[in-house]
């Protein structure tokens, strides 16, 4: 009764599996392979950084040297040779001063990725910072944002144009020695995005950074810092892709968010780094530290992520809820297939009174994919009336995959209320049959059921991204059945 897909079909699935696998031919200006104090100094010098920042990087580097790579996550990979990585790679030539000066080849690349940088062609209502390997190549709608007082620029620009803000907030949420990968990033980060929303301002557009790794054997170490002043509001989107290569590449980013009193930051990610091929060859190692601080009363930070890419995902976007009545949210879809491994989740640290957090995690494993939810809910003694609700559901497609759920719940306050629920099951035979009886192919039926399974998370995404994420899920599910 089962259909056996013919070869042409299999091929189309494999080929269609990753549509952003092309390489852009630009001349790259890269530092020698490997990591050392000299490389850290060279990166800082290339960016003409102030002394304090070089100092900060060097301290991070020395801390990193003393640290050991964490082994607790449920992921397996060969030892990373940190001396075989290029820590800085950028398109050759002087940095463009405006979008008009950007190499047409680069513009074409982002165009091809669906992120046109010409403001005429750009998505209305979305400002984009485009990061290519180690540098930002351009930011759209800067002027319009400036009118509202919003600063949206590359991290390097911010270091020069807004040094006080950078100095005040850099490392204030993720200290430079926070963990192995954060320390590495702090030493060698090359660029990223910087956002500042002034008091009482509702950011007039969605802000977005599109990360593209292009150069071979290079790592990408970007840093994002978003500051929302009292009573402000911003929605930020992040997208990522990389070429299809046989070698693994390292991506170790740090994202810091600060929400002051009554401010709200919504951070959405559609992560589609190259996941490796159907035999598990190649793919991005994605080791990312993302954390938000709800510093002020009634502030809110909401993380939404759709993780379909990378051969290894290691990330736990977290909220430290300091302000009374502050709110943290984490909505996640993680899909692993072929030989992908994901160990992802969140930390919700409740410190302020009546702080509330919600965790909705949907894991889908297919093929030989391994998917782990790992999360911490920590209620401090002073967090009177704190609330947490967590729901972690896993869906398994095929007998070779794995789904794992590791929540850690710590409660030191008797007035707190914590609820955690998790289920793991295979995709329902009843649902599959019902859909097929109504004429849907098995693959379409799986795609429909999985989309329904993920709906609670998908509806948290801004519209433009929700459509993208839906398509991504459907493409990622192709070839998982039959």
């Amino acid at each position, binding site marked *: 009764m089962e259909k056996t897909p013919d070869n042409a079909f299999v091929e189309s699935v494999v080929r269609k599996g990753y549509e952003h696998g092309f390489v852009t031919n630009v001349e790259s200006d890269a530092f020698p392979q490997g990591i050392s104090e000299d490389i850290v100094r060279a990166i800082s010098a290339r960016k003409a950084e102030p002394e304090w920042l070089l100092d900060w990087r060097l301290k991070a580097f020395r801390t990193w040297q003393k640290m050991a790579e964490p082994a607790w996550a449920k992921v397996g990979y060969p030892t990373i040779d940190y001396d075989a990585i290029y820590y800085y790679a950028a398109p050759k030539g002087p940095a463009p001063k405006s979008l008009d000066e950007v190499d047409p080849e680069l513009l074409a690349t982002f165009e091809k990725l669906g992120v046109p940088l010409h403001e005429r062609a750009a998505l209305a209502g979305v400002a984009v910072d485009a990061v290519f390997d180690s540098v930002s190549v351009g930011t759209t709608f800067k002027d319009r944002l400036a009118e509202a007082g919003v600063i949206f620029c590359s991290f390097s620009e911010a270091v020069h144009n807004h040094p006080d803000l950078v100095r005040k907030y850099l490392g204030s949420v993720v200290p430079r020695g926070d963990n192995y990968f954060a320390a590495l990033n702090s030493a060698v980060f090359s660029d990223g995005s910087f956002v500042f929303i002034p008091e009482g301002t509702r950011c007039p557009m969605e802000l977005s950074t599109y990360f593209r790794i292009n150069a071979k054997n290079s790592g990408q170490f970007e840093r994002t810092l978003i500051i929302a002043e009292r009573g402000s509001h911003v929605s930020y989107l992040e997208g990522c892709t990389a070429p299809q290569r046989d070698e693994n590449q390292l991506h170790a980013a740090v994202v810091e968010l600060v929400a002051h009193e009554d401010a709200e930051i919504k951070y959405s990610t559609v992560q589609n780094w190259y996941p490796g091929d159907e035999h598990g060859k190649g793919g991005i190692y994605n080791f990312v530290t993302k954390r938000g601080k709800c510093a002020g009363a009634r502030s809110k930070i909401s993380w939404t992520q759709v993780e379909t890419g990378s051969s290894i995902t290691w990330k736990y976007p977290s909220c430290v809820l300091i302000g009374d009545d502050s709110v943290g949210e984490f909505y996640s879809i993680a899909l692993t297939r072929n030989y992908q491994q994901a160990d992802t989740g969140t930390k919700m640290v409740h410190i302020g009174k009546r702080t509330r957090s919600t965790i909705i995690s949907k894991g889908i494993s297919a093929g030989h994919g391994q998917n782990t939810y790992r999360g911490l809910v920590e209620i401090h003694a002073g967090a009177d009336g704190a609330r947490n609700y967590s729901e972690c559901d896993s869906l398994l497609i095929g007998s070779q995959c794995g789904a794992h759920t590791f929540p850690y719940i710590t409660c030191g306050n008797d007035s707190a209320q914590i609820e955690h629920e998790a289920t793991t099951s295979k995709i329902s035979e009843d649902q599959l049959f019902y859909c097929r*009886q109504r004429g849907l192919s098995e693959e379409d039926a799986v795609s429909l059921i999985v989309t329904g399974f993920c709906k609670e998370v998908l509806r948290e995404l801004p519209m433009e991204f929700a459509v993208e994420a839906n398509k991504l899920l459907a493409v990622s599910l192709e070839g998982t059945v039959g």
Partner: protein
Amino acid sequence: MIEIKNLHVRTEGGAEILKGLDLHIPAGQVHAIMGPNGSGKSTLSYVLAGRDGYEVTAGSVLFKGQDLLAMAPEERAHAGIFLGLQYPVEIPGVSNAYFLRTAVNAVRVARGQPALDAVAFMAEMRRAAKVVELSTEMLKRDVNVGFSGGEKKRNEILQLGLLDPEFAILDETDSGLDIDALSVVARGINAHRGPGRSFLVITHYQRLLDHVRPDVVHVLQGGRIVKTGGPELALELEARGYGWVTEQGA
């Protein structure tokens, strides 16, 4: 329309449920199958629709001359088989309207008809929903999630109307319905009767047949058709129970 010969079926690794079932339903006719619990009624409907978990050990099923048993469930749907389930399945997170449109267009494309665009489909759906008195509110909700028993069954008949099958199997569509819901469902079924469409109505009770008058009534017992008659057979069964058939057959 459909020709079932000497059908033997057992559950995967389990007991034989159908033991040489023969059934012929010509185009345009409504046949009812009645029988006690465990007689194999639901198994028959699942085997015709192609559900996993059943093993056909002997016999054949021809649908418009095609070998039905060789086809995948969706291919049977495309060919014109519809099964209204006794317990319609919930699909959380998927709106009824989206599900219906996906299904209708999958079937249309497979039949060589153009897919309906959103506007054309909505008009179709509203028309079909009216027949079974389903509100547009129900169309926006997730498939069968939070539907009452009656709403689920009306939703099945709505799908029957939209998917335009040539052969519809209705498995205990009357179970769990109050009299009002029953008459709505029955009206829905009757609205879809026609010369090109055959029905197999599976039921435990005679009351649905008061509303949907069958051409032929069969009694299924012990995995075989043990008696066949006209609509009056249903009344007789209601009055005298299934034991009477067994005694007669013995």
